[in-house]
């Protein structure tokens, strides 16, 4: 869907990007991670031709982006940025309708689509459509930003630190909501962030950049398990094993049959969709070695053993 081939970009004499080769898998969310100045935003802006590379080429759908007319290309790619950039003199409804309007959709189709995407981000058009951007909270404004990017149903989304300006609590919520949306819509997403937790939570794959070079590009689990260089390990943090566990649901390690006879009361069981980091925390706190898991209907579905968790946590431990 998106591929970079030997892409170099310069600001004046300094190279912001140096020979980047990167191919994105379709319908996956790829994180561009790195410290500030690593060139991740630059890489993103090359895709919709807000910037042009000094050499190398960028392919979208197998075609060099230079073969598209820039405006036409951008209308087929959703674009979300940190400061949202809603038009302050347009109502929320008109902001969301921007790209369909540019594409010349007919009125009824636009109206239907605006309602659809606003419902998708949890801001019903009836309530929010007539508001002006200054009447929205930071989190609401960014939801509108996401709705606007999705309005014309583009197959590709470019997101440049979209949730960084939202307060921490709101950020966690909006990340969860976006993950839900992504599971349903399966867009090909290029997502820039400098926040490792966000990257681990959202990314199917992570491309780690440093000073304009690609250091490692792998599935998130692989990156956490086997950092290619000391820099990668350091950047991901000493707790990268916990981060790896945070991506795996408890149900992945469930075994049938418990230690005793009969089922324990549901109150003692943990929800099976909790992540393994929280289960580990439970083990540390309770001192037990095994815990029952329950589904949403409070039915016991299996048992999780501490030794399985520890085996998985050990580097090189078998991934489920």
């Amino acid at each position: 869907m998106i591929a970079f081939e030997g892409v170099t970009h310069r600001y004046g004499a300094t190279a912001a990007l140096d020979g980047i080769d990167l191919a994105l898998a379709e319908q996956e969310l790829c994180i561009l991670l790195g410290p500030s100045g690593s060139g991740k935003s630059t890489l993103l802006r090359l895709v919709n031709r807000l910037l042009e590379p000094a050499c190398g080429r960028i392919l979208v759908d197998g075609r060099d982006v230079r073969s598209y007319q820039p405006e036409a290309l951008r209308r087929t790619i959703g674009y979300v940025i940190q400061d949202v950039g809603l038009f302050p003199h347009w109502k929320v409804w008109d902001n969301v309708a921007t790209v369909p309007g540019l594409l010349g959709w007919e009125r009824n189709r636009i109206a239907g689509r605006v309602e659809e995407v606003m419902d998708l981000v949890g801001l019903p058009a009836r309530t929010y459509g007539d508001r002006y951007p200054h009447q929205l909270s930071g989190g609401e404004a960014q939801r509108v930003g996401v709705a606007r990017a999705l309005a014309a149903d583009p197959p590709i989304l470019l997101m440049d630190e979209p949730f960084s300006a939202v307060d921490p609590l709101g950020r966690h919520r909006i990340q969860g909501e976006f993950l839900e949306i992504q599971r349903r819509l399966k867009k090909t997403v290029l997502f820039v962030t400098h926040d490792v937790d966000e990257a681990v939570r959202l990314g199917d794959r992570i491309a780690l950049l440093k000073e304009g070079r690609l250091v490692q590009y792998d599935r998130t689990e692989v990156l956490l398990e086997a950092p290619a260089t000391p820099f990668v390990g350091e950047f991901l943090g000493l707790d990268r094993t916990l981060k790896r566990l945070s991506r795996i649901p408890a149900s992945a390690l469930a075994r049938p049959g418990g230690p005793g006879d009969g089922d324990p009361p549901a109150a003692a069981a943990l929800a099976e969709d909790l992540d393994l980091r929280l289960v580990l925390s439970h083990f540390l706190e309770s001192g037990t070695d095994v815990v029952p898991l329950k589904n949403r209907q409070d039915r016991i579905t299996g048992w999780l053993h501490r030794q399985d968790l520890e085996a998985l946590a050990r580097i090189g431990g078998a991934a489920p």
Partner: protein
Amino acid sequence: MAQAAPGAPRIDPVLAVLALAGAGSAFLVPFYQFAANRIVGGTSWFLIPASRSAALGVLLGWAGIAAFACLPPPVRQAAAARWAWLLVPVPVLAALAGAARISWVLAGHDAVARVTLGPGFWLTLLGALVAGIALPSGILVRALGLLPGLGLVLAGLSRGWFDALSLVREARSLGSAFGTEFARHLTLTGGAVLAGTVLGLALGLAAHRSPGWRLGGFFTLNFLQTVPSLALFGLLILPLAWLSTRFPALRAMGIKGIGPAPALIALSLYAALPIARNSLTALDEMPRAVLDAGRGMGMSEWQLGLGVVVPLAWPAVLAGIRTATVQTVGNTVVAALIGAGGLGTFIFQGLGQTAMDLVLLGTLPVVALALAVDQILGVLSRPRGTRP
């Protein structure tokens, strides 16, 4: 606007002082002066012996405003309180009615004797002006308050009610010259603002795009602003005179060292500065994220310019045009000195003849014009419930 400010004083101090001062000045300072002809000095008259009914009207107007100032703050701030603005024209209309009565009596007796409006009258007018700003109001209320009074005055003028007023006598003796110069004043101001707007917008845009223009362009305009207008007119005489003798085509177009051409050039340069500065600020402060998002969504530069940049910059640009226009209305007065005409003609004639009424005849329309332009452009630049 209608919300009660928590710390609102029990009595509105501005309005209370204004009403007291207004009423006081109307009765403690001479209101009209009589003179037997244009040359001799006049005798001063106070409002009370001159016209008791006018005195009553003036007093009632100010008493009404004083009473409004003493109302409880929530009542003063209620939406209906703007109707109190209708009190503002009352003292002025009463004072004018008094002037009309005296003038009418006098006109029957003597063809050269005249009534001059004295300091008391002008203080009443000034007080009403300030009260008009201090009182809450809306466009509708202002129109309702001003238009009937204006109509009455115009009707009175055409029917000769004010014929013995020295202002009217001076205007009559000028004949059609008044209308001609008034129209010329409007033309000069309008032309200069138009040219200044084009120049200012172009410079604002150029300065936004290139640091060279930002430095050079604004240095030049700022420098010109420090040159007194009269000196600038003078400085333009020489090059324009040279051009005019050198190129007959220019002379045929009426371009000479003196007259409207140098005036228009100088006035346009003065008018350009506030417009250029405001448009530059508006462009500089355009939120980057908005432009980035617009481009990233696939808007062309034209769509971005007309759909986003112009509407967002418009209020600031219009505010610049407003400043420039008000300023140009006043600056145009000086243009009379280099033969460009306009209302300044009467002011300088009057100064030469120590005929203060002639000076007033030039000054009053300029003041009225500046106020009117300020009000109209102020209404136009009001934002429509959006904030960038």
